[in-house]
């Protein structure tokens, strides 16, 4: 039954670990839980043994899960509390390795040289077997030493954690200190006493270990809960930021809109009031009134145009993909940025292939992507001396369309997977928002193309965009 409980806990945490690989605690727990299950099974076999040889055989197998149990707990303490002396951990695992190796090279097992008789005694309402007359091996002190050191190690780690940390670390120290030290040390000590023949009881560690497993399980689930809360918080912040960005953009838009519309409205109102004043005062010269009315009409039309422009602007939310020669769009964009590039001392070398097919693109959106790539490249090269600030823009044929590449000689990409630069809110610039490349990627995706980044062999980065040829994507 104990074995079953241990296995169930182990499987649950193992699944949690598979789900959330960043929490190494789950894997360690899996090892410990399976080890406890193994201990339980071998103990049961020992209790049911009928001959000294059978009992001794199961003692030998008992050492295998015990090794994993102690090693797993050592690892758990280190990973979870972050304290614990490395040399002590190494010594404990080393000693257990010696025990394990010696266990399978000596006869009948590590603990005993000879077992002559089993003792049968009642235990929890059943008659069970334990060691009766036996000769304890002279090297048994190695096993005892490892257990004593293990107790010291856990206690030391818990105390260190208690003294150095805040409330959370103190709680962890207490739970792990009590959960492991008390039960593990008590259970292993019991086993040692049984082996030394000082205690007439069967070897029964499992009930103690279940407490340990429980303590560890509580700790791990708290960790997972904390991690999930942190993730939810991060998601909420991201949403908020996106919302704030939208609101700001809307605020700016409505501000300029208010100005554009209020200006003609103000002119209309003042003209109309002036005309009314003239008519009331009887000073209204018909020509003057005609001029006023003409101005009112033209200002009214102007206000209408503002609304029209705004509607056109808002409508362009979707990409309107039409066949365009790619080189033309590239040249247009470079021309747009010419002043900016000159100001930043960046030279542009273009190498645009002839005979490229037209590609389906929304020129405004595609320009936005290209401008973003060029501006990023300029930012990346800002720290270089002016004569090294060279930007290369290349177009070439690709298997399914056209490839555009922007090479720079700047500070390059961050270490690791270069694709991180496309993540939202990822930025290497001090004042960057980290949305330029992520927007670029969604624009290119809407064009059925792809965009990726590469490190250059001689420093700097290259961004590639591949777009399908117009005829291919239309068919």
């Amino acid at each position: 039954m104990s074995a079953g409980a241990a296995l169930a806990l182990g499987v649950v945490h193992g699944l949690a670990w598979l789900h959330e690989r960043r929490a190494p605690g789950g894997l360690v727990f899996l090892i410990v839980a399976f080890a406890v299950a193994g201990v339980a099974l071998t103990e049961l076999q020992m209790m049911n043994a009928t001959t000294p040889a059978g009992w001794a055989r199961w003692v030998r197998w008992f050492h295998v899960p015990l090794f994993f149990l102690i090693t797993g707990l050592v690892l758990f303490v280190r990973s979870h509390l972050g304290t614990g002396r490395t040399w002590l951990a190494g010594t404990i695992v080393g000693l257990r390795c010696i025990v394990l190796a010696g266990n399978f090279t000596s006869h009948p097992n590590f603990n005993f040289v000879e077992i002559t008789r089993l003792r049968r005694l009642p235990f929890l309402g059943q008659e069970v077997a334990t060691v009766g007359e036996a000769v304890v091996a002279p090297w048994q002190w190695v096993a005892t030493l490892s257990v004593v050191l293990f107790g010291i190690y856990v206690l030391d780690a818990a105390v260190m954690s208690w003294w150095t940390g805040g409330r959370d670390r103190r709680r962890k120290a207490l739970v792990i200190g009590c959960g492991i030290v008390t039960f593990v040390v008590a259970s292993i000590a019991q086993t040692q006493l049984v082996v030394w023949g000082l205690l007439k009881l069967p070897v029964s560690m499992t009930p103690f270990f279940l407490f340990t497993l429980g303590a560890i399980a509580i700790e791990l689930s708290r960790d997972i809960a904390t991690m999930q809360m942190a993730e939810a918080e991060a998601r909420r912040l991201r949403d908020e930021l996106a919302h704030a960005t939208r609101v700001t953009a809307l605020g700016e838009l409505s501000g300029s809109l208010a100005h554009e519309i209020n200006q003609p409205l103000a002119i209309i109102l003042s003209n109309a009031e002036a005309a009314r004043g003239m008519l009331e005062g009887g000073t209204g010269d018909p020509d003057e009134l005609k001029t006023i009315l003409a101005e009112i009409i033209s200002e009214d039309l102007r206000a209408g145009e503002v609304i029209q422009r705004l509607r056109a602007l808002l409508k362009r939310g979707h990409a309107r993909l039409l066949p365009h020669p790619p080189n033309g769009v590239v040249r247009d964009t470079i021309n747009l940025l010419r002043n900016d590039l000159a100001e930043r001392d960046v030279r542009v070398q273009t190498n645009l292939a002839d005979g490229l097919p037209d590609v389906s693109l929304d020129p405004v959106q595609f320009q936005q992507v290209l401008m973003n790539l060029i501006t990023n490249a300029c930012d990346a090269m800002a720290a270089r001396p002016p004569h090294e600030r060279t930007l290369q823009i290349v177009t070439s044929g690709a298997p399914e369309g056209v490839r555009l590449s922007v090479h720079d000689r700047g500070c390059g990409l961050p270490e690791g997977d270069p694709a991180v630069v496309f993540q939202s809110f990822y930025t290497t610039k001090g004042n960057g928002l980290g949305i330029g490349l992520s927007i670029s990627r969604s624009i290119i995706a809407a064009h059925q193309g792809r965009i990726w980044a590469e490190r250059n062999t001689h420093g700097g980065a290259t961004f590639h965009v591949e777009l399908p040829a117009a005829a291919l994507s239309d068919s």
Partner: protein
Amino acid sequence: MSADEKIVYLVDDEPGMIRALTRLLQPKGYDVRGFTSPSRFLEAYMPGEQCCLVLDVAMPEIDGLLLQERLKHLGIMVPIVFLTGHGDIPMTVRAMRAGAADFLAKPVREQDLIRAVNAALARAGAQRETETLAVRLRLLTPRERDVFDLMVAGRMNKEIAAELGTGEPNIKFHRGNIMKKMKVPSFADLVRLAEKLGIGTRKGRD
């Protein structure tokens, strides 16, 4: 305030706006002078006139708030009525703190504009009077200025003489000069004048 001195300067980058406001204000007897840029206004502005400025906030060359600062820097104390297409609270606060006469949103109703312009012109008149009085005050010698301060604080000649360590006849002599230089017929007028310059109250609290 005489009728020929209701000068209103209009500065707005849109000629249409200037034409409309001119049509509105001119028949009401204002001397309207419109400019499409702040620099043209500065070229045309004559110090010493009783005038106000109706100023657009959003202009390409210098915005209205910046012009307000420049004018202040140049010592041109013309009262300003701001007009804006989209004013927010910080903008209004900034303008009013810097001494704007009013802050109106476009489109502006005739009566609101005229009320604001009249208030600004009245302020300009008061300012001009204060300036004239301040010039007169600067004509006093340091000793006369001391006597003046104590007089308007309500001290008797004897007390003033004792405080300044001199005789009463001297004080009487200074009094006569002060009344002449400040161009006031009576002591009561002198106290009113001091109040306008903000002197009487200040000394009274000492």
